[in-house]
């Protein structure tokens, strides 16, 4: 299944159900909840960390963590 780490810059996804135990509560509080939209804004020069927009909240996380956030990719058109 696709995760946030698989998104391309500018691409969006909808967060799907995930295992509660893996993700830190802080991430949930920042809006990383099933059903919410997530957009990959930018990738750091060395491919890690990544900069995402969680329905309005902009945060940077490492790929290790992004691998645990499952998404269904909604927007395949390249960013303008």
């Amino acid at each position, binding site marked *: 299944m696709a995760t946030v780490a698989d998104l391309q810059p500018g691409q969006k996804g909808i967060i799907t159900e995930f295992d509660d*135990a893996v993700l830190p509560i802080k991430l949930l509080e920042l809006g990383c909840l099933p059903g919410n939209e997530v957009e990959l804004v930018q990738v750091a020069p060395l491919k890690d960390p990544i900069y995402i927009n969680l329905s309005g909240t902009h945060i940077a996380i490492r790929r290790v963590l992004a691998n645990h956030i499952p998404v269904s990719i909604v927007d395949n058109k390249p960013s303008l």
Partner: protein
Amino acid sequence: MSKSINVALIGNPNTGKTSIFNQLTGLKQKVGNYPGITVEKKQGICKLPRGVKAHILDLPGTYSLNTTSLDESVVVEVLLNKNDKDYPDVAVVITDVENLKRNLLLFTQIKDLRIPTILVINMADRMSRKGISVDIEAMEKKLDTKIALVSTRTGKGVTYVKELIANYRSLLAQPNLDTSRIAPEYFARLKQAFPKEDIYKLWLVITQDVNFMPIEKKRIQDATSFSTKSKEDLKKLQHRETVLRYQFINATLKDTYKVDLQAATGLRANLDKILTHKIFGYVIFFLILLLIFQAIFEWSTYPSDFIDEQFSLVSDWLKNTLPSGILTDLLAEGVIAGIGGIAVFIPQIAFLFLFISLLEESGYMSRVVFLMDRLMRPFGLSGKSVVPLISGTACAIPAVMATRTIESWKERLITILVTPFTTCSARLPVYLILIALVIPEGSFLGLSYQALTLMLLYLLGFGMAIFSAMVLNRVLKIKSRTLFIAEMPTYRLPLVKNVGYTVLEKTKSFVVGAGKIILAIAIILWFLGSNGYSEDFKNAETIVSERIEKQGLSPYSKNYIKNNIDLYVKSTPLSITGGEKAVSIRAIQDSVRVMTKILTESAMQQEVASYRLEHSYMGCAGKAIEPLVKPLGYDWKIGIAVLTSFAAREVFVGTLATIYSVGSDQEDTIKNRMAAELDESGKKPLFNLASGISLMLFYAFAMQCMSTLAVVKKETNSWKWPLLQLLFMSTFAYLVALMAFQLLK
């Protein structure tokens, strides 16, 4: 007259909480610490309408009441303890209009604690630009609160907030959510076991690691009718709580909060493209660092020199005005010289704090964190370590505290341990004076040798920090989760008022803190330097005059007289013409003779004074440690200065100032005095290239700051780490300084 209202300001990071605090309190604020911990406690007084006063507490920023750090648990502690003197009558939750949804999570939690709560929606000036519209009236109803739309940039809405605080009694303290929905069965059992307690409060006590309530926690564990849940189960329930809260918030915002995306402008996206670009990003970061150093070393010399002059004027004035005696000497030579030693680098410190505060306020610091994370990881550091490492150039104490945002314990510990290697501002006066003394003038590729040396010292500090981080990363066997979540706030133009307050506050506390230590040390040193027990000390005058009769003046004194005569001759105008020339030359010769006599007399007095100093208490102590510092190229006076600066590095210059002034009658700048000192052989200056470099290297590496050790102890909660730091850094510094001197001499 009524009693003042206790107000707590609460909010997520980056919501402009501090701006609101500044707007409400003006300059009537006090920064201290929470008892026993190093979390900063900001309080202030705010005048409300009708003569009422509010006592405002600015709590640390937090995303929720589910705490992950010391700063955040302070918030929970204050809000849960009704007996705390800071327990708020009313809570003011600050939110950012652009991030309202996320910010409301904390709001609902506070509401559920049944504390009267006011909602402040800040950054209202950005609404039209971002296409946001809010139906305040409807939102007030849904959230059961009063809302103030505020813009700290224009000052709009602040008066209304004051009014709301004054009328806090009209607020209802009803919860937003039925919290028992988090886990109905579990909460029902809780209610049964503790019928008198507020359930949501109990829930927080159970889930949070809050230090202050061990008793209450114990009561819960002791209640036999009640079985606590496992950590995993509790975490699941916390997740559930978050989901429930967001459901409530989404329902609330659906009809009351609208964003017209068409109207939004893309400043963030455009700036991010450049500032986090894979090449430009680093170039810009490097240029900003260069700018900071330029400011510290070039721009601040003018105000520094000015302050330096003022202090020697004051010192002179005191000596001439007050009746001569012990007290005047202490004041003019010990205290003023010591304080002057620190005051000259107020400009440098102010510049450093100014830049750091600008970088943080504007939102740029987060982009640096993002850029650097991957680069720092091989060294066991996090992108967030960059912030402490940069602010460590101002002072290691706030830098060590700034490591709290690092989630992984191992990354945080390594950052704490290596931060004191960065060149803090206390090293600056030591470096600056030594560089001026031992590094020749001249330039290489347009950069002066002196500036290059300073730059090298800074690079050395950073290099050593990174290198030891790498070693520690290998050596330390600590298992900890690597977590990294960094908010990327919106870019904002920093508010002059906020930056101004920060610079003022930090500089003041630095100068006052260092000033106290320097004052105390100056007084002690001065006393030890002007008293002694031995016969030599008491009969100094006769011993020295006998010696001068037999052997003549010391090389130092001869040098001193010669230099002054040269200077005198040079400055005397020889603009006389014709037949009068012969006469005028005679006149000059006469005056030189008189000059020499005066100088010889004062040189003799100096020799007595320095003989006395050598046999004073301080001289005896210095001679005792001399064998230890001699291999590094230092004499006993420098030894004393190094020893006293274990309290704080900046004491070094002040100590030398005190020692030299006790040992002489001349009012002169400290730099000139150091330049005049000769080494043992009496031929070379004491501060030469070898001993100067050895001293600089020693100061670069040695752990000479008691305050840093204390803060590391508090932050790591153990003596092990600060002691390790002290031992390792200082031994290393000694060895490097030893090698440098032996190779260069």
